């Protein structure tokens, strides 16, 4: 084992498992790809196998499936309203994908695909572009009123509009960074404490206790970040559909 292997950042390395090249684009199957596939298979299995009985009185797994459905449906209804109904499959997939990536990433020796800025940015930019397109298609030029808050004195407009535009454009960046940074920091911290356990020998019990506590915290963070990403998506969607700030 090289020293590089013990670096807290080594866990984030992308390893090409199968080299694939499609029309000059590097589409290699990596450890990240593997865990993305595991993630979607896990989600699909959990949501379809549990519903096979279609029981009137749900069992444990069916309750989990129904709860996640109602959780996201409720979130969308409260934040966007009835017009958000058609975006439900997308928002639901987004939430489940991030949640399962985060949680599966907490399994030792697994890989967290959401700990890479390019992945979180990819999702954030899809949300950003999608929401902007929805806004433009629904409101045409009136969509620009999103950058000019109502009830603000005219002389403040030259100052406010650039601020609004910048804050709008930074949405995908903040969305992507928040998730990426949380995932990476948590995993790095766990790894660092893991190193302490080994280095301190008998006294490694203390960082071990810390790791257990941190692990619980990371489970909360895994859920919370999926929730935050999804609810912000809902809020952006609401802005685009209803245009009020």
């Amino acid at each position, binding site marked *: 084992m090289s020293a590089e292997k013990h670096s807290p*950042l*080594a866990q*984030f*390395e*992308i390893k*090409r498992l199968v080299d*694939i090249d*499609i029309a000059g*684009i*590097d*589409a*290699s*199957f*990596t450890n*990240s*790809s593997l865990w*993305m*596939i595991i*993630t*979607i298979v896990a*989600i*699909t299995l959990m*949501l*379809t196998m549990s*519903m096979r009985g*279609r*029981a*009137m009185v*749900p069992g444990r797994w*069916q309750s989990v*499936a*129904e709860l996640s*459905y*109602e959780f996201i449906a409720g979130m969308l209804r409260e934040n966007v309203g009835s017009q958000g109904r058609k975006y*439900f*499959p*997308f928002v*639901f*997939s987004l939430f*489940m*994908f991030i949640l399962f990536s985060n949680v599966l990433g907490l399994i030792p020796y697994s890989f967290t*695909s959401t*700990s*890479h*800025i*390019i*992945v979180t940015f*990819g*999702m954030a930019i899809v949300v950003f572009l999608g929401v902007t397109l929805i806004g433009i298609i629904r409101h045409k030029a009136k969509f620009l009123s999103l950058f000019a808050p109502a009830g603000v004195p005219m002389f403040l407009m030259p100052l406010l509009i650039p601020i609004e535009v910048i804050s709008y454009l930074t949405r995908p960046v903040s969305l992507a960074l928040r998730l*990426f940074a949380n995932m*990476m920091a948590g995993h790095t911290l766990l790894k660092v404490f893991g190193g302490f356990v080994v280095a301190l020998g008998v006294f490694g019990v203390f960082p071990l206790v810390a790791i257990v506590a941190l692990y619980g915290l990371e489970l909360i963070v895994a859920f919370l970040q999926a929730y935050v990403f999804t609810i912000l998506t809902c809020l952006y969607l609401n802005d685009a559909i209803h245009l009020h700030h």
Partner: protein
Amino acid sequence: MPQLIITDFSPQLVWLVISFLALFLVMWKVALPRIGDVLEARQERVTNDLEKAESLRGEADDAIKAYETALSEARASAHNTAQAARDEMNAKADAKRGEVEAKLSGQMAEADARIAAAREVAVGHIRTVASDTAKSVAARLIGVDVDDAALEAAVASSMTEGK
């Protein structure tokens, strides 16, 4: 930092698109409609059951009302029947009593008549005895053979006086 290796970006993005699209399609077309159907069916079932319970309660209320009406009707008809029976019995008893009373009064009148006749006969006998006695007394005491007609008149007048 492994996250900043630019050459690793493209495989991650490609597989993100592939896996997310696959997940989205499965959720959209299979998983979510299935869960939605079950939730809707349950909601429907609950609503139906509530409605059914409501209608059953209405039926039960109706049944209770019908039972109470039937009960009060039965009570009223029983009362009527009893009243009718009582009236009939009273009428019969009255009729019988009238009959018996009439019969008794007839018998009483008959008896009265018989008594009156007997008295008449007895009084007649008394007169004969009295006149006979008077005749024999007169013959014995004063030796006068009293005329029958006069005797009878005297007896009659004395009997009238005695009354």
